[in-house]
């Protein structure tokens, strides 16, 4: 693959520069201080109507993280996707349920990659300011994450389109100010900007395994104008390819979160092995357990490289197929490593790891979710094979 060198030079810088290191440590401090994992339990038990903290979201906006990658002309900071990934990794450490994936990875990327300048101007500044939340619905029951397999349709009417269908697992649909949905139209896949309060839109929130917030969005003859097509009607046939690119970025961003999550779960587990005494010695002195920990450490190191390379590629490559390869790589390697870490974390904690009272279980729930989010890993390996010509 072309990660490496033409002309003898590594294409990809896989280490953080000084500013990114600073960003990383600020983010780490903030998350450690304000976002303990136990919050997930509190929000769940209180049946919190939003399922995350609006105050924290505003703080993150003020720190500049929500607009980190947004262009300056839309009041963003104008940094790269790599910088965003640096922040996401830290948020992932504590499994933050704030609408990062929906708004920053799906919504904002869709608008940036496919939106008209009016659409961008209408939404991006609000996203960066923490005032607007965006959701994106592409998956449907039975479609297994493949947008093309969905059944939602858009039918042309006099002045626009009517949308009918149902999207499942739509992250943060219940709080979104805007929902972008994919729908088949004239044999193409289009992306449509839908106002959640429009007639015919119904949103049912469910309690998700990993305590991120999601719901089902049902569209019954929802009327939208031509200006609701992402990129404008002229861009109608572009929807499928924009969506592919958006999902690739989401895979990479999610993988960055996973990196933080697996590191934290691993760190907690190694600490537990050092503290817990059985047979008059710390558990961590048993070689059977040492080797399992050392293996996890190795697979985390490999996942880290894949994720950093993928994030860097978003910024450096103008070829969507190249990004797609790295997205598949990052998502598969990170989610597999994460799942291994989380599963082992429970096992090595013993009984306490099985209790709701302990935080480690939240990592397993998130890990299982990442395995099947944004395309199953089997599908992504098939995609990798196809992109590499076999």
């Amino acid at each position, binding site marked *: 693959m072309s*990660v490496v*060198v033409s002309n003898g030079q590594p*294409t990809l810088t896989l280490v953080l520069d000084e500013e990114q290191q600073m960003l990383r440590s600020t983010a780490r401090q903030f998350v450690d201080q304000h976002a303990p994992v136990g919050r997930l339990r509190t929000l769940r038990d209180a049946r919190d109507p939003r399922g995350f903290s609006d105050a924290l979201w505003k703080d993150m906006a003020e720190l500049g993280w929500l607009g980190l990658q947004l262009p300056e002309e839309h009041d963003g900071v104008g940094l790269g996707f790599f910088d965003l990934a640096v922040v996401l990794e830290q948020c992932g450490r504590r499994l933050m349920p704030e609408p990062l994936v929906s708004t920053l990875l799906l919504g904002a990327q869709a608008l940036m990659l496919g939106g008209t300048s009016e659409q961008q101007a209408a939404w991006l500044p609000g996203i960066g300011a923490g005032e607007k939340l965006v959701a994106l619905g592409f998956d449907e029951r039975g479609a297994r994450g493949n947008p093309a397999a969905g059944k939602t349709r858009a039918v042309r009417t006099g002045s626009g389109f009517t949308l009918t269908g149902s999207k499942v697992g739509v992250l943060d649909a219940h709080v979104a100010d805007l929902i972008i949905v994919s729908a088949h139209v004239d044999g193409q896949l289009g992306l449509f900007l839908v106002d959640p309060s429009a007639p015919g839109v119904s949103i049912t929130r469910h309690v998700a395994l990993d305590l991120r917030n999601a719901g089902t969005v049902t569209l019954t003859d929802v009327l939208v104008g031509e200006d609701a097509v992402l990129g404008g009607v002229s861009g109608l046939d572009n929807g499928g390819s924009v969506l592919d690119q958006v999902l690739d970025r989401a895979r990479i961003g999610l993988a960055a979160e996973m990196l933080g999550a697996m590191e934290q779960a691993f760190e907690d587990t190694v600490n537990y092995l050092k503290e817990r005494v059985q047979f008059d010695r710390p558990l961590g002195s048993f070689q059977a357990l*040492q080797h399992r920990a050392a293996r996890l450490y190795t697979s985390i190191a490999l996942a880290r490289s894949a994720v950093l390379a993928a994030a860097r590629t978003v910024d450096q490559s103008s070829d969507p197929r190249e990004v797609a390869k790295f997205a598949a790589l990052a998502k598969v390697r990170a989610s597999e490593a994460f799942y291994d870490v989380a599963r082992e974390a429970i096992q090595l904690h013993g009984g306490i790891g099985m209790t709701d009272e302990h935080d480690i279980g939240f990592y397993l729930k998130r890990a299982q979710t990442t395995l099947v989010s944004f395309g199953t890993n*089997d599908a992504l390996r098939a995609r990798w094979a196809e992109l590499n010509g*076999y």
Partner: protein
Amino acid sequence: MSEPSQQSESAELREFRAEMRAFMREEAPKSLLGTSPCGPFDGYWGGKLHPPVDPDVLRWRDVTLARGLTAPTWPKAYGGAGLSYAHAKVFYDEMRELGLPRPVVGFGFAMIGPTLLQFGNEEQKLQHLPAICAGEIRWCQGYSEPNAGSDLANVQLACEPDGPDHFILNGQKVWTSHADRSDWIFCLARTDRSAKKQRGITFILVDMRTEGVTPRKIELISGASPFCETFFENVRVPRSNVVGEVNAGWTVAKALLGHERSMIGQSIGRDPGSTQRELVKLARKHLDAAEGPIPDPLLRDRVAAVSMEEAAFQLTLDRLAQSRAAGGPGTESSIMKIAATELKQRRFETGMALAGAQGLGWEGDAFDEEDLAYTREWLRSRANTIEGGSSEVQLNIIAKQVLGLPEVK
């Protein structure tokens, strides 16, 4: 593919790159172009017992040697070019671009050389390093013994003083790769039996031509015979051949193992994408699918999974190279040893699955040469997780030195 980023390379390095490129275009023998992945073990092994060799290989050695480039980072005084790691990388990158083999390779260049630079005295450096640079002397590694494998500190090769200036060696080494083709051997020997194991070891260099040194070949499961048992019977060695202090050889030994592991990782990572290319080629051959998707979806999935493992490994090599502040392998060499060798084994296992029954031949016309060779290479690959410190030993190192997990009291 996206444009390689030039931003991080200084003007000085760019100039050096251009200079190296011009040098190679002009002086490298044309017959060698495109012949090698340029890994740390791909090239001329040298030594006095080397079988006859293509004169172009020697010419390539000569032109690089004249500029100190057979060991680019070694000081000029010892035959190197005194270059920084960054410059050396540029040199190797350019060689790889052209598919040129390394002018001199071997355990001298990869293991004992760097160790002598760190621990050797001036006479030792002057005696051995230039000869390594020139590929005149081939070295082998006398570490393992019948009762000292993973527990290397248990070496028993007896090393008794004989007068003020000599030692006498008696005992046996085993698994000595290429001892039968080597000129010198670096050994771990026991000089103090009363001290704690690690404290009674001495690192000593022995000329294989000394009376009493006898290598005997051992055949591997692959049918090849690349290594030996090496016997020492009253072998008299000058005291000046001790590297570091007497009884302080363990520190020297461990440093050398770090170099060995990192070379193994780099060697397996020397040809990015080769695993995927090889497996796809085998799939096309054995599943009779000249193009398009690999027809068996389960095998296709396996190929993709190994190829992803390869990519993640390769990127990790890059990442660690970038983050290594300055030279010298550290604990990351243990991660890379495990990742590299297990990748290589998975590659061969997948290749064998693709070959199916065509992978089950040993000799005979039912199999082509490539099939037969592949099966033997698969067998050889089983050694990768044993040699150079087994995977289990690497896991021990990671657990204790990196993760800080406690020792058994």
